[in-house]
């Protein structure tokens, strides 16, 4: 039975479940309700099968590897290879898809009779299918096709809510950025092909010694730009805060929780698997990129008031944290310390899994709030904990996990990342050491700012009093939404408590890569779920949990029996100095973040502009309305993308000279180009 699942046919069943789901949704597009149920059923069945399949493969001894069909093109082979790294990513994808699909059944009801549910189902299934193909493809060209399926289909999901002009714009930016990124990826694969003579990953891997080091470095830069754009590293992230919020919430959860991880998957696959051995500066470069992304990501998140954009910026931050793990892993490997290197990889992969769970949880809870209030601006929320207590609880769990508070899962992967960085600080020579010191500092700083940001997000959204009629009228979400959120919240806790199990599982994933095939990891997990990094430090989830519970009980008892012992407790109104407290007196998201924004004004460049409208423009005694606009300057747009745009525009202006509009001239150009090409290729 187990052999039957972990085989070629098991994988094809997985793909076909999603394919049938896609086709069926399209056929049933006339009936919204039927399409929704079909969509939900096949997505849930497919993800359950995917979880089973990947778990079996993670415990199997050998990888599944096969070519689906003899290809008619010489360089393209539709071949799959599912080793433990792929299986791990299949697990992450299907796990999150499962809960997003359950959530989707209830969530997409409000699209009935507005947009086509069948189309949504089609794109949703194709999207998951694309991601599954991306993490299993074993051929460069086939991979690119899968990558394009994923990218283009997710574009359609971004513009699904097409009545909003902003979504169309965000989708367009996404489409442009993702294709520029694909161009870099294509170029990277072409370089690899030129020197190894094949697009097959295995062939590239075995022929890696043929690649000159300069070309390898070029491939590194191309891959960082290409896959980094998809992963959302700064400064290639500009599409992400626009595109993720535009999609329906359960799709945002998938995009932010899972899709950007495919970029990480390919970085691991290329750097750690295919191009080994690599120079030291690659790892250090990744550390720098990771530090910058995590710090700037969280800083921009602090300035956001749109709840989904805020979460999208946090994805950038967490990708940065994952890159810190991956970067330390690469550095250690180049320095010949595979045991420490495996520690870095485990940290990165564990954080990948954790970020997928808590980020999708946060997006789903944000979606639940948006579904009830129909607004995304946090300043207009407030007091939702009274109307939506369960959603508030789930959002709180997600916030605690993303802020790396124990006993939730975010803590353990960030702890491992810290350990990897500290090991670098304590073992490495001077120059590399300082990069690790800076990275550890950036990570600590990021953790603190993330906590501040989620105090803001949770407090402004759920506490105090409603600041708008919509927030006042909101009610609790339907069962399928609450079930999906609750299950994910439970998972964030379970992944934290059973961090020992998961770490040893990920250790095995690492050992499956050929560079780590006979490496014992520097991090060891014990049956009592405690983790030990060498003899340097240990952490134990059950002990932490027991300590927290004990501390909670002690504080509760102290308050009850010592502080309140001789006191009568009366409830009354808040003292308001005789006036009436209104929601306008509450602290706002802007106000809360303003002090931190001011501290970082060198980076964020906050601006303030006042405008006063007078009743009588002549006398200017009686102001009619005052407007204060606080803004944050987008550095990348003004210093990177605007100049690039200007250069492109100037070049197009030059090119206008040969665009005569005369068809004979164009035929001449084509002929010249053909002749030159023929001469060059011979």
């Amino acid at each position: 039975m187990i052999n039957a699942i972990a085989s070629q046919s098991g994988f094809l069943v997985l793909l076909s479940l999603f394919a049938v789901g896609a086709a069926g949704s399209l056929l049933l597009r006339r009936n919204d309700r039927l399409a929704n149920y079909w969509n939900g059923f096949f997505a849930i069945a497919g993800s359950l099968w995917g979880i089973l399949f990947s778990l079996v493969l993670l415990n199997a001894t050998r990888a599944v590897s096969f070519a689906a069909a003899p290809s008619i093109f010489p360089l393209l082979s539709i071949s799959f290879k599912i080793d433990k790294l792929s299986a791990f990513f299949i697990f992450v994808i299907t796990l999150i898809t499962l809960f997003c699909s359950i959530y989707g059944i209830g969530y997409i009801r409000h699209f009935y009779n507005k947009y086509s549910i069948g189309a949504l189902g089609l794109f949703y299934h194709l999207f998951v299918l694309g991601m599954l193909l991306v993490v299993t493809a074993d051929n460069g060209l086939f991979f690119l096709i899968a990558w394009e399926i994923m990218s283009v289909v997710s574009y359609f999901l971004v513009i699904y809510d097409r009545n909003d002009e902003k979504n169309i714009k965000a989708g367009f930016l996404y489409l442009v950025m993702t294709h520029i990124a694909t161009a870099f990826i294509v170029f990277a694969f072409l370089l690899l092909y030129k020197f190894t003579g094949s697009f097959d990953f295995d062939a590239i891997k075995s022929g890696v010694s043929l690649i000159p080091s300069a070309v390898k470095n070029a491939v590194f830069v191309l891959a960082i730009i290409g896959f980094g754009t998809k992963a959302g590293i700064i400064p290639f992230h500009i599409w992400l805060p626009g595109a993720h919020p535009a999609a329906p919430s359960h799709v945002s959860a998938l995009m932010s929780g899972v899709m950007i991880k495919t970029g990480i998957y390919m970085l691991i696959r290329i750097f750690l698997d295919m191009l080994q051995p690599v120079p030291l500066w690659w790892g250090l470069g990744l550390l720098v990129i990771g530090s910058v992304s995590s710090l700037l990501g969280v800083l921009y998140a602090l300035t956001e008031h749109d709840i989904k954009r805020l979460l999208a910026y946090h994805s950038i931050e967490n990708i940065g944290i994952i890159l810190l793990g991956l970067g330390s892993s690469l550095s250690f490997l180049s320095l010949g310390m595979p045991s420490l290197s495996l520690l870095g990889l485990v940290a990165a992969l564990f954080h990948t899994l954790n970020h997928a769970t808590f980020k999708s949880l946060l997006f789903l809870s944000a979606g639940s709030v948006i579904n009830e209030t129909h607004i995304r601006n946090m300043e207009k929320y407030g007091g939702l904990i009274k109307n939506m207590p369960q959603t508030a609880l789930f959002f709180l769990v997600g916030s605690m996990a993303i802020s790396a508070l124990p006993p939730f899962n975010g803590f353990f992967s960030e702890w491992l990342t810290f350990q990897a960085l500290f090991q670098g600080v304590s073992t490495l020579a001077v120059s590399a050491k300082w990069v690790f010191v800076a990275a550890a500092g950036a990570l600590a700083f990021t953790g603190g700012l993330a906590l501040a940001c989620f105090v803001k997000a949770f407090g402004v959204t759920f506490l105090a009093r409603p600041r708008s009629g919509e927030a006042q009228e909101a009610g609790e979400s339907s069962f399928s939404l609450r079930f999906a959120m609750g299950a994910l919240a439970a998972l964030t806790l379970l992944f934290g408590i059973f961090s020992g199990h998961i770490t040893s599982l990920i250790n095995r994933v690492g050992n499956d890569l050929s560079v780590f095939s006979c490496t014992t990891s520097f991090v060891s997990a014990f049956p009592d779920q405690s983790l030990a990094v060498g003899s340097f430090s240990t952490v134990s989830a059950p002990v932490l949990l027991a300590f927290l519970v004990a501390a909670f009980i002690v504080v509760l008892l102290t308050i009850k029996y010592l502080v309140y012992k001789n006191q009568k407790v009366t409830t009354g109104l808040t003292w308001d100095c005789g006036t009436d407290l209104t929601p306008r007196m509450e602290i706002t998201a802007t106000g809360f973040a303003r002090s931190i924004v001011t501290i970082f004004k060198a980076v964020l460049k906050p601006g303030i502009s006042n405008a006063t409208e007078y009743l009588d423009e002549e006398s200017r005694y009686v102001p009619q309305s005052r407007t204060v606009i606080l803004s944050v300057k987008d550095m990348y747009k003004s210093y990177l993308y605007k100049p690039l745009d200007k250069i492109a525009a100037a070049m197009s202006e030059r090119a206008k000279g040969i665009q005569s509009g005369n068809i004979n001239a164009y035929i001449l150009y084509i002929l010249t180009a053909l002749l030159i090409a023929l001469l060059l290729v011979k």
Partner: protein
Amino acid sequence: MLKLLVKIFSTPDVTIPVTPADCVRTEVMAVGKKIEDQVKRLFRGSLAIRQVDAGSDNACEQELVALSNAFYDVERFGIHFVASPRHADMLMVTGPVTRNMAAAVKRAYDATPDPKIVVAVGDDAIDGGIYRGSYAVLDGVHSVIPVDYQIPGDPPSPKTILCHLLKILESLNGKPAES
């Protein structure tokens, strides 16, 4: 609401007579010393007073403010005026209680933690004084909240206020006014 009404009627408004001659003859310092002893005995050395202006003509406020100036300086006797009824042991209400201020006075009373002492300062606060019978006022603090003590005078001088305060504290007899 009914409870409050019952309490308003059941609370005796006590005016402790202080003969003007007594007060004039005594030095501020002597009264102050005695007040300090009482405050130490009853309030562990610190009596917090919240002053509530219930539509007063500001005469009483002038005199109350004078208590804090360099000459009287009541802080040295352990009395201090606080910014919020939440921190107060005693409410000093001035003014005849205009209709607009009635709700605010009641809220301030509710916000003061038990046990609390309410003192109506000035003739206006006791029964409306010169504003008595006006359609705009409610004729005294006792019509809105239960008043425990009254300090007459239009306005009472700072020294008079101190003398009354001493009498009030002496009459408390170890037990602050019932809540």
